[in-house]
């Protein structure tokens, strides 16, 4: 299977599954914390849902793997930083927050991993999941990001 096809398939599946009702709030184990070191980026299956788990500067963030734009597999994308340019940077380009921004592989939309918010249309945001570590194990809940 080609990478392109896999990308298209996975997005289709993620979209289909996301239409199912969310579970009652239950934490699902997704692996030992040692599998999620700082800077890591993994996609895990939580019941019927694909979830991206990101360790940003030691803090875990979990986001549903569906882009609200055209439902692409957003968590398959690379993680980068935020290019900024405004009055506070003296209208100079400034590269900031490296490792905190997720880029959708379909259309390049950028999302703040810590909030799920899109950097362009700010009303667009990824669905965040609750994630914590219990006795050395990462647990994700599909509700309550």
């Amino acid at each position, binding site marked *: *299977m*080609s990478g*392109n*096809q896999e990308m*298209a*398939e996975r*997005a*289709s*599946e993620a*979209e*289909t*599954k996301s239409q199912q009702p969310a579970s009652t709030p239950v934490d699902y184990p997704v692996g030992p914390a040692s599998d999620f070191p700082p800077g890591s980026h993994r996609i895990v299956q939580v019941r019927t849902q694909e979830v991206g788990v990101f360790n940003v500067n030691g803090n875990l963030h979990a986001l549903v793997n569906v882009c609200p734009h*055209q*439902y*692409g597999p957003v968590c398959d*994308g*690379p993680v*980068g*930083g935020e*290019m900024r340019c405004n009055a506070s940077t003296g209208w100079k380009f400034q*590269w900031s927050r490296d490792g905190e*921004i997720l*880029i*959708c*592989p*379909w*259309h*390049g939309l*950028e999302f703040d991993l810590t909030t799920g918010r899109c950097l362009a249309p700010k009303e667009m945001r990824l669905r965040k999941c609750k994630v914590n570590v219990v006795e050395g194990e990462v647990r994700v809940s599909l509700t309550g990001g």
Partner: protein
Amino acid sequence: MPVQSNRVASDGMVVVDCDIHVNDLPEFLAPHCEMPWRKSLEILGAAPRRYLDIPGYAPSFGLHPPIPGGHSARSVNTPQAMRDELDALGIDYGILLPDHLLLFATLPNIEYATALSHAYNRWLVAQWIQAGSGLYGAIMACPQNPEDSAKEIERYAGTPGICSVYLPTAGVDPLWGARRYDPILAAAEAADLPVILHSVTVTSPVFPAQINQFENHFGRQVIGHAFSMMANLVSIMHTGVPARYPKLKIVFTEAGVSWVPCMMWRMDRYHQEYRRTVPFLEERPSEYMRRQMWFATQPLDEPVNPKHLVETMEHYGGADRTLFASDWPHHDFDHPRGLAKLPLTQEQRRKIMGENALGLFKLPMPNRLSKREIHSA
């Protein structure tokens, strides 16, 4: 049973995609190219290159630094990969257009361009068009050599799987509509093959591609395709192409559709005032557009309220004149689901997603749907 891939077409709707792209690297075309230009392609195939940036093949006036971030380019190398990917996207049929050779019209060497157009067409038919695959081809016209190109269209007319003629539009000079291209349009009309205009964002010293003043890709991308289609539409109209070739069918791709009413109304307005300069246009330009022209959706205009796009489409003929296109596998492709947001009736949706294209390109109803009809009969 695998998870249903929630295809838009699953309710019995045919999905025809009138703009998908094959990876046309020089080394792929080389074995199909005449000498001495085969040697040129072999040299190019061994040289370093970047996507849409191959000197002498896909010339790019690369002025700007890379910016960190962004998403990577995708390409499709084989018909099987394309078929699998279209299946995953829920697309029945795709019309194949080139990738690097979207910049074909900017190549100034006439002999080389002619040989390259021959090689592309041979390669397309030999490697990509297979019965039953749902992959259809557009013969590449060579604006650098219209007389030869007309013969090429005649040569491939009737070849199974060839359903259209691709008019390289990025950086074409003069614009389509110029009289020198008449042999190409006459041949396409005679072969009953619709012509597809397809541009790409390019900086080139010809109108309207002199976009070097834009300091970033946002500016060039917003301007590039749309201005190219606007300029070529007006050029095609101002020499009376639809009047002189009344059976010619013309498709505009990869510029979205929101520019269409603007140009249509401006042409109608000035047709009243300057009719005597275009006396071959015996009807309003909009009448020719509603009869002989089609507009592809991608990149889907995305107003905050999707209803506004549907209203915009209605100004130029709406669902009857609109064709779905994904532009797969390019960076700004549209998933068929992207159109699910538009408030269309089921009939309008069926026309846009595939039925218009079935008629326009004379494609058969796919087995998956014709079988269902038999079962339900």
